């Protein structure tokens, strides 16, 4: 049993954890990072954001090659070498985790591998492969993340997988049920569909991606109608594992009468925080019934030397939120009077097409009683979108009516996630429609659609009929 004494221990090496650890180290704090995995990067790098994007890239190119036949370029039917695809995905993960490991060494952040649990307000015990390590710390940051929710009535069967299992890509199932119409399920559905699986999606609520606005999701439904079968307002009530497949019984609006056979069931009904898995109560930290840890705007828990960040402090469970929270926690520990004080946090579904939104959605604006006006630019009116065969897209901006201040935006279409950055920056900077409309956007780009949507609000649009023209 070894002992370590440090100024700061970070429990969990996901994007939030390693960002916090690196920031702290750069601010001169002696830092130790603890994680179960051998590599840094957590779920995001190892079994989340990054590997899924590698596979989505493959899926996208397959789809585009197919579409090209309509424009006179025809490729042969693709053949898939699963080992190679998986190998490529793994190499992406490898490259990034190696990079992290190098940066960690450079910063002299010590990595202790193992399962860390608190034993007191200043002590943590890590159970690793090579025995126990006791870490005595001044401050701690809990960044233990979240894990997929599993459903109790679904039998344990290797054909029932979660996102991690889906990323392993053991084979390409003939028919896969995606249980849950959220971002993760739809992304994996997109990948497997491109590789040839038949995909059916079941969602309990009346809309896929429930957080996004209806008009955006409606367009998404239009684009996927030939790819996925969707069952909305429907739930799974039973899964029976038989030799020839998993027989799933449904209930609800679009439920098939008889149980349906699937080769695979991907359970993607959400993620639950790991707050209750680190024995935080031994340190005096309060964990909610659902496993979240409450923090203040400086990411401090109810115990003054213990901070928490990322998925386990609350929604949205997104890496980029965790990174910023991690920086704040590290800076506060280093004595800076910083606060986690964003106006907006972007959300992106890397589906085909991408769906992205930031700031207020119309739904939220209505709930909050904000007097807003939406301006939507359809990509069918964009030269670049037409030329790129990407007319299935919308750029929608929400403005506060009085001030013209941008309060939210949503984009569906190719590269929507990349375009979202401008909207987020504009919200943070307090830009109004005029500011955005007067910013010259390059032509022809998809990004241009943001400037054009602002022009619609302003009543200065010329690329489309101008509904406000007469009033001006």
């Amino acid at each position: 049993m070894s002992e370590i004494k440090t100024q700061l221990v970070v429990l969990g090496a996901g994007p939030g954890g390693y960002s916090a650890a690196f920031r702290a180290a750069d601010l001169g704090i002696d830092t130790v990072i603890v994680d179960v995995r051998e590599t840094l990067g957590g779920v995001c790098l190892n079994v989340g954001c990054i590997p899924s994007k590698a596979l989505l890239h493959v899926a996208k190119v397959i789809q585009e090659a197919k579409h090209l036949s309509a424009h006179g370029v025809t490729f042969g039917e693709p053949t898939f070498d699963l080992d190679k695809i998986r190998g490529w995905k793994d190499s992406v993960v490898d490259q990034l985790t190696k990079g992290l490991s190098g940066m960690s060494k450079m910063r002299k952040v010590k990595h202790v591998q193992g399962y860390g649990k608190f034993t007191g307000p200043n002590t943590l015990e890590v159970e690793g492969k090579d025995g126990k390590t006791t870490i005595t710390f001044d401050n701690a940051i809990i960044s233990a993340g979240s894990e997929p929710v599993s459903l109790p009535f679904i039998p344990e069967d290797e054909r029932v997988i979660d996102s991690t299992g889906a990323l392993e890509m053991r084979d390409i199932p003939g028919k896969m049920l995606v249980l849950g119409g959220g971002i993760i399920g739809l992304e994996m559905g997109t990948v497997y569909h491109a590789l040839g699986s038949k995909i059916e999606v079941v969602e309990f609520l009346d809309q896929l991606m429930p957080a996004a606005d209806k008009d955006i999701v409606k367009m998404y439904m239009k684009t996927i109608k030939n790819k996925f079968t969707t069952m909305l307002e429907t739930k799974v009530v039973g899964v029976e594992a038989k030799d020839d497949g998993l027989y799933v019984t449904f209930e609800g609006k679009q439920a098939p009468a008889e149980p349906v056979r699937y080769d695979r069931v991907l359970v993607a009904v959400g993620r639950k925080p790991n707050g209750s898995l680190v024995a935080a109560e031994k340190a005096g930290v309060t964990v909610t019934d659902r496993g979240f840890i409450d923090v203040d705007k400086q990411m401090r828990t109810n115990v003054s030397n213990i901070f928490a960040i990322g998925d386990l402090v609350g929604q949205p469970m997104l890496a980029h939120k965790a990174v910023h929270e991690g920086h704040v926690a590290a800076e506060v520990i280093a004595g800076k009077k910083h606060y986690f004080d964003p106006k907006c946090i972007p959300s992106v579904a890397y589906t085909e097409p991408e769906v992205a939104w930031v700031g207020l959605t119309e739904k939220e604006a209505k709930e909050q009683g904000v007097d807003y006006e939406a301006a939507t630019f359809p990509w069918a009116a964009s030269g670049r979108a037409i030329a790129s065969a990407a007319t299935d897209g919308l750029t929608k901006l929400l403005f506060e009516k009085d001030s013209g201040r941008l309060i939210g935006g949503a984009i569906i279409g190719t590269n929507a996630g990349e375009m979202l950055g401008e909207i987020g920056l504009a919200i943070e900077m307090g830009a109004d429609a005029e500011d955005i409309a007067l910013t010259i956007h390059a032509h022809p780009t998809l990004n241009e659609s943001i400037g054009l949507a602002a022009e619609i609000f302003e009543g200065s649009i010329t690329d489309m009929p101008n509904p406000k023209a007469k009033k001006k």
Partner: protein
Amino acid sequence: MTNLIDIIVPDVGGDEVEVIELCVEIGEAVDAEASIVTVESDKASMDIPCEGAGTIKSLNVKVGDKINQGDILGQMESSAATPVPEAELAPAEAEQETPKAAAPEAPAPVSPKEAATASQGTKTIEVKVPDIGDANDVEIIEMLVAEGDTVEPEDGLITLETDKATMDVPAPEGGKIISLAVKVGDKVSEGSLVLTLEVSGASDAEPTAQSAAAPEPTVVAEAAESPAVQQDTARKAPPVPHHPSAGGKSSTGKVHASPSVRRLAREFGVDLTLVKGSGRKNRVQKEDVQSHVKYELSRPKMNPGSSAGTGSTGGGLQVLAQPNVDFAKFGEVEEVPLTRIQKLSGPNLHRNWVTIPHVTQFDEADITDLETFRKEQNAIAEKRKLGVKITPLVFMMKAVADALKQYPAFNSSLSASGEALVMKKYFHIGIAVETPNGLVVPVVRDVDKKGIMEISKELMEISVKARGGKLKSADMQGSCFTISSLGGIGGTAFTPIVNAPDVAILGVSKSEMKPKWNGKDFEPRLMLPLSLSYDHRVIDGALAARFAVHVSGALSDLRRILL
């Protein structure tokens, strides 16, 4: 024949005064000497009368404005061909009219922008007092708006004070105030009409009653934080860097500041809603936050002691802020707002206490003979039915006036530069008077020239006035020296605070029979304790001791005053 004349602020006794009430409305016909506005200085409130009779045509001021002598309050159309000659400044308190419920029209100046929005289809709504809990007959303690003001939705209109808390009644919608139906001091209940609001650009579909009753009153936890007070501090002309205050107008969520500016504001604990942005479209820049912090650190504080927890240091002094204690933890508590006089005099007392190096000289006077004499005179006065009662205080005033003559340094003030003394050739003495609303200091003029009876009579009048809150500003100005007598209550000594610009103050405690050695044996003598606080920058200790001995001597043997 009519002619328009300006209503000009007369001599209001020095500094700027605050308008606390408008007594007339535009279009109202007024008699000569009718009160136009009520103003309040740091010493007293008074009415400003109009010169002649006529009709009020315009008013340029609203409640909360600061005005000075010579400012134009508004215009009136005189009904007489020639203006009535100005009468002596005699505020007609009794004639003060109660403002009528409905005002006929909005004041003249309307900005082009307002006019434009008004033309876009407006509607008029009546703003009523919303549900304010069980409280009925709640007093209006502050009017936050005046007729003609433009308000945003949720802006405070009036402040109500219940036995539990003060709360603002917010505007249900933005628009222009057409008329006020209430004034400070009125009692209102749920549903009482507050004012009429012209809503700009409103849709006709909205039912009036619904929109008028919708908003909940915002409860203001601390009186010190009410918008009106914030506005006060924002308007106060600072002797320091420019003050980028947004005027205390809190527009939550509408602050225009980038993430880096928000971070800076967080570091310094600056509430960005209070910072006026200098950038394009009022965007708050880093420089705005910096100058706001500079201003907040250097500006005089309304009440630094109680502003603890709001991030301020101790009123420009480098001291810790008061800890924010939740007294309710220790037992039942109740929060009672400071009276107006307390709020006004607090900062003055605090300034005097921290800026004047105080020393207090203790002494006692043998008033055995004086008391015998005084009682004899009172008995005679009663027999003759003079209606005057002589108090010991009158003799003290005479004794002090005599001592001031002997020691002119005590009858001086430091010049503004602090490098010269202003020596006074008159002998006005301030008397600290306890009133139900707080401490006031009326002044008796030319004490040296007046007789005991005359001063006694004047004192009686003054204290009646003071306790009735009827003192005028002029009654409380021009003192050379102050006497604070607690003799009627008790105590052996205390350390009074010099009432600047005076340089000394005499505290008087309760007289007591004491054994005094007369050279052969102990004799019972009635001894009066004296506590003389003085500004050590002006007065030396030896001089103060002499002054105290002189006062003591004069009281022991009044004949000495004649010498």
